[in-house]
């Protein structure tokens, strides 16, 4: 049996642990740069605020219902996630951390009553970390995900826990769920399924498996088998190496001059190179993109991107910055107010496996660059990010993220510890 443990409204719950005054109030958390609402408490959901609502569009509602809005505080969420996962790790030897707030636990071979066991898990996590969780348990990952969803909705199960096999008539329930509610079914795939008259989960479960495989491929076939309680998707206990790296931000203020964009792109290139080195990867391709705001309908809009191939795979910050800036010069057009830029490294390979170039003249450069990067990383690790930087990153950062409503890093910085009053 597999359990999916999902933290309820995770970002909001993290904030509430340290600000108990937020309990029971409508709370929304904003995306990077205070753009859209990306996490919501139950209370704000009930007020009809949808996921992804732009912050600037609902000032009246916020005032009227005294909605509490916060910038996202990833230092806090990351640390709380680590704590939740560590507590969960005590309940099974086999687990897959699926995302910042979700985790699969393998409970096969457990002889105890799984509902009781799951209630103990939920209670331990809540007491130890303050984070409420919901747990769905089923023979397969797909059904565990579904059971979790049902537990959250309060459709079945007791409180926050639902064991699939305790359902009296699971098929009746499946018939009420549209296919797009299912884990991994995109809206496009949902529409294609609807066209062949598969519109609810029960219909998909009972669909002809050969037909599904032929028309939709092996991924959906696996899902159909999983709906029929045959496990096909194993737990991934070791996180797979990343296939691509994206470093991109919206700017705090719109930028229009090339020097400002150069500084931002240099920072993104630096960060991308750090990500490469931390995973011992390198890249031979780099893509730079810039675009104007999709919301500024009264201003001229421009989007462009350029992909550049390097002679040699690299993880060198200097080389990535030079390449990114050369790309930026090619796509930059004056007269626009840019809202976002970014760097994508679409094709990564393990460091040390690169093919040497036939015409490479600077064959001694590699070990030198590696030593330099190691020193750079060590200094920035010890003294804080950007302690040592390339000049092109600049000193002022007008473009940096706007995060005006951020709570302190309660659990990761001495100067930010929660204050408790003695009285």
């Amino acid at each position: 049996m597999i359990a999916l443990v999902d933290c309820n409204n995770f970002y909001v719950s993290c904030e509430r642990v340290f600000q108990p005054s937020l309990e029971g109030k409508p709370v929304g958390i904003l995306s990077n740069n205070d753009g859209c609402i990306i996490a919501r408490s139950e209370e704000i959901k009930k007020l009809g605020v949808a996921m992804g609502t732009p912050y600037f569009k609902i000032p009246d509602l916020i005032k009227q219902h005294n909605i509490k809005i916060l910038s996202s505080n990833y230092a806090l969420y990351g640390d709380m996630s680590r704590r939740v996962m560590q507590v969960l790790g005590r309940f099974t030897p086999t687990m897959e951390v699926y995302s910042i707030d979700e985790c699969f636990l393998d409970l096969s071979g457990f002889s105890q009553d799984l509902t009781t066991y799951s209630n103990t898990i939920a209670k331990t996590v809540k007491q130890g970390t303050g984070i409420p969780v919901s747990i769905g348990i089923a023979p397969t990952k797909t059904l565990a995900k579904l059971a979790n969803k049902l537990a959250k909705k309060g459709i079945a199960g007791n409180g926050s826990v639902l064991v699939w096999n305790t359902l009296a008539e699971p098929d009746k329930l499946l018939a009420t769920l549209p296919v797009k509610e299912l884990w991994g079914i995109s809206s496009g795939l949902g529409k294609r399924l609807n066209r062949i008259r598969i519109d609810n989960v029960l219909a998909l479960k009972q669909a002809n498996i050969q037909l599904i495989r032929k028309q939709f491929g092996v991924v959906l076939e696996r899902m159909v088998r999983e709906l029929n309680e045959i496990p096909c998707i194993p737990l991934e206990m070791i996180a797979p190496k990343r296939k691509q790296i994206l470093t991109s931000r919206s700017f705090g203020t719109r930028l229009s001059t090339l020097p400002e964009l150069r500084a931002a792109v240099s920072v993104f290139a630096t960060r991308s190179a750090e990500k490469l080195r931390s995973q011992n990867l390198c890249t031979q391709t780099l893509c730079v993109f810039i675009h104007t705001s999709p919301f500024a309908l009264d201003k001229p809009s421009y989007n462009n991107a350029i992909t550049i191939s390097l002679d040699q795979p690299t993880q060198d910050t200097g080389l990535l910055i030079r390449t990114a800036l050369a790309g930026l010069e090619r796509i930059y057009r004056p007269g626009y107010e840019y809202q976002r830029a970014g760097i994508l490294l679409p094709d990564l390979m393990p460091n040390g496996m690169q093919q040497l170039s036939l015409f490479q003249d600077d064959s001694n450069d590699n070990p030198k660059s590696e030593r330099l990067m190691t020193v750079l990383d060590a200094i920035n690790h010890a003294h804080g990010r950007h302690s040592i930087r390339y000049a092109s990153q600049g000193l002022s950062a007008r473009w940096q993220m706007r995060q005006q409503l951020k709570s302190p890093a309660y659990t990761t910085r001495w100067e930010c510890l929660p204050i408790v009053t003695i009285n």
Partner: protein
Amino acid sequence: MSHYITPLFNTSLKIPLFSSSVAAGFASPADDHLEAELDLNEYLIAHPSETFFVRAKGDSMQQAGIFDKDLLIVDRSLTPKDNDIVIAAVAGQLTVKRLVVKLGKPWLYPANPNYKPIPIKEGSELHVWGVVVHAIHKVSNLS
């Protein structure tokens, strides 16, 4: 009657590394007495993933040895019991109190005798956040 001898796997013996260089000529006489270094984390924190640090502010809680600006180590995994110093959420604020159980009912006692004890009722918003296990202050701060 047959006897089975089952090996024990649940104990372990750690052998210390001989750290002094042999090339120097003489082995250090301390090599035979090496022990692990003392780890303050190990002493102060029993449950790392459920332990939080908070900063105390306000009147001292002398009888509990807690002073203004102290770093408090709070273990949320512990079940609070009578006479524990706890962090409690009272009216949306985190505060330091003493938990007292009287006639089977839990109360939060303030440090300051001018304030009244507060009863913890079932279903109220008031709840115990965690148990304070250590208070840390620089001794030179106390005068």
